């Protein structure tokens, strides 16, 4: 678009007023054309009706010149830098404080707030403070992007930037803010495109942020924008809304997995001590049996030996006595049928024994017992 109108011509007119990303940031200071014309008219009016003499005219002219000259003073705020143009050509950059430039039409002044950190939100919009239903609104067209493994991720980030070279910033790029936004989006997608979804969601987040920052700075340097990216903050790096439930379910599944294992571990921890207890019992029972058997054996052996010692002293007598005493005890409570085997003896009688009768008696005796 050709600009043949000087001063505020076109949206990006070179003369500065309302130019650049922040209205008035690069404002032109000093008198404009209309002022000058008005002054000229004043001078004519003074000349024509002849109210004043030549001296008066000179006086007014000098006063106007001084005023014009004085309009060249300007202050640069601490966070700013001034850029002076001489007939449109870059002349010098001035530091904060009181400065002087030749007023129009010789020099033009542009002021750039270099130290102010600007912030671009990409993938979301923060509602202005106090706005109704404020908070953060997602911008899906910016936030959704493809990952290297052809999944889709939702990413929000903030780019903070400042001006490192005021002259380059003003002279080299027409639309610095849009350039930062476009480059940042492009860089983020390029980096995420090389990252897998799983990495971008978890351990690779830092890397994505730092790689994007590097790439963005490289692009901006390539464009000679005079911009420095001070920080790139990855706000969100999440699965998209549509699949978030399934991601959460994976988290739940992980919890379930741990719970199942913990329950099993608890079972393990419960039954093994029980088993140890049972084992101890089995061992103790066996020990008890061993002790018992040995003790009994020792007792029996000792008893036998004691008896034997006595027996040795009087073998026949003792043996007979033992026999009789034993038989006495054995036969005492027993039903006894004594059959003489003399004449005909047992061989003849036994077959006729009333066995059922004996059994009945035996049963009766048992019942009594």
């Amino acid at each position, binding site marked *: 678009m050709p*600009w043949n109108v000087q001063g505020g011509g076109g949206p990006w007119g070179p003369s500065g007023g309302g130019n650049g990303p922040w209205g008035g940031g690069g404002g032109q200071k000093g008198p404009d054309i209309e002022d000058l014309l008005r002054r000229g008219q004043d001078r004519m009016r003074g000349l024509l009706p002849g109210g004043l003499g030549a001296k008066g005219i000179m006086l007014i002219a000098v006063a106007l010149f001084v005023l014009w000259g004085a309009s060249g003073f300007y202050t640069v705020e601490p966070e700013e830098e001034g850029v002076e143009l001489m007939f449109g050509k870059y002349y010098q950059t001035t530091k904060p404080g009181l400065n002087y430039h030749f007023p129009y039409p010789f020099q033009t002044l542009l002021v750039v707030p270099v130290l102010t950190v600007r912030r671009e939100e990409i993938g979301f919009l923060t509602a202005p403070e106090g706005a109704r239903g404020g908070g953060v609104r997602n911008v899906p067209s910016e936030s959704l992007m493809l990952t*290297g493994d052809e999944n889709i991720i939702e990413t929000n980030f903030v780019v903070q930037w400042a001006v490192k070279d005021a002259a380059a910033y003003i002279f080299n790029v027409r639309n610095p803010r849009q350039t930062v936004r476009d480059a940042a989006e492009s860089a983020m997608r390029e980096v995420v495109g090389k990252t897998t979804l799983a990495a971008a969601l978890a351990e690779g987040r830092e890397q994505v942020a730092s790689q994007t920052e590097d790439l963005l700075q490289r692009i901006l340097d390539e464009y000679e924008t005079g911009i420095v990216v001070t920080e790139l903050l990855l706000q969100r790096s999440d699965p998209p809304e549509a699949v978030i439930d399934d991601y959460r379910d994976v988290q739940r599944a992980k919890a379930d997995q741990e719970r199942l294992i913990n329950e099993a571990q608890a079972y393990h921890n419960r039954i093994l001590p029980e088993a140890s207890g049972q084992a101890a019992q*089995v061992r103790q029972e066996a020990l008890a049996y061993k002790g018992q058997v040995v003790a009994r054996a020792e007792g*029996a052996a000792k008893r036998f030996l004691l008896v034997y010692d006595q027996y040795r002293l009087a073998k026949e007598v003792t043996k007979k006595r033992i026999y009789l005493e034993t038989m006495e005890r054995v036969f005492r409570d027993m039903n006894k049928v004594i059959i003489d*085997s003399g004449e005909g003896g047992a061989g003849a009688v036994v077959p006729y024994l009333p066995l059922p009768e004996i059994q009945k008696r*035996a049963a009766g005796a048992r019942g009594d017992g």
Partner: protein
Amino acid sequence: MNRRMTVILGVIAVVGLFVGLGAMFTVDQREQVIVLQFGEPIRLEQEPGLYFKLPLVQDVFRFDKRLLDYDNPAEEIIASDQKRLVVDAFARYHIVDPLRFFQTVNNEIGLRSRLGSVINSNLRRVLGTVPLRALVSDKRADLMLQIRDSVRLEAAAFGIQVEDVRIKRADLPQENSEAVYRRMQTERQQEAAELRAKGAEEAQKIRARADKEKVVIIADAERDGQILRGEGEGEMNRIFADAFGRDPEFFDFYRSMQAYEEALKGDVTTMVLSPNSEFFRFFGDLSGTISRQ
């Protein structure tokens, strides 16, 4: 006289000022200018500074000298694997030949459609040769360079130097996105199911191991128990053998006596006895001699 001179001088000064102003123009650091005489371009000024021209006869046309932005509308591209992709690219360029720029596209609005079609045709051509995966990930930077180079070549005709063409967004069309979401969902569902199954498996293993250990612990104890019992019994045998071995004959007798007593204790069995037995030796005969037939 003096007054008239002053008036004339004043008028001359004013007219001279206007003519002088009309004969001067500045070229800003950020712009470049072509001078037209009756609409015909006769001069090009690209360096900033103060310049002169013929007033009224010559006009100046100003062009931006800064890096200019062009945002290409989203364009649907088909990759070589027939996957569709919506590509949103932007370009950055300088006007390097304002005259040609002025003649071919007149102004930036005129450039927009021409540059757009150049970029789109190159996007299609270059991206159509690679699969979607390459475009999204590993070859993106290379492809952007290729596109930039060929766009730069073609766009030189408009008097511009294309400094960069970058793919801002490369997204799947809506319906393909849905498919990706479904795939992501099923993948996650799979993962969740696998996690749960693995949990169950691990739990089962732990339980089985616990059960096994329990059986082993108890079996070990039982083995030890049997050994202990055996030791006890062995010891018992040794003790008995030791004691009873001193007189086996007496042991035979003694142990039999004990056995009779134990075995028949409290029994009410009817026993048929012969008076001829040893026990009844004195039953019918004082001498105690058993009558033997």
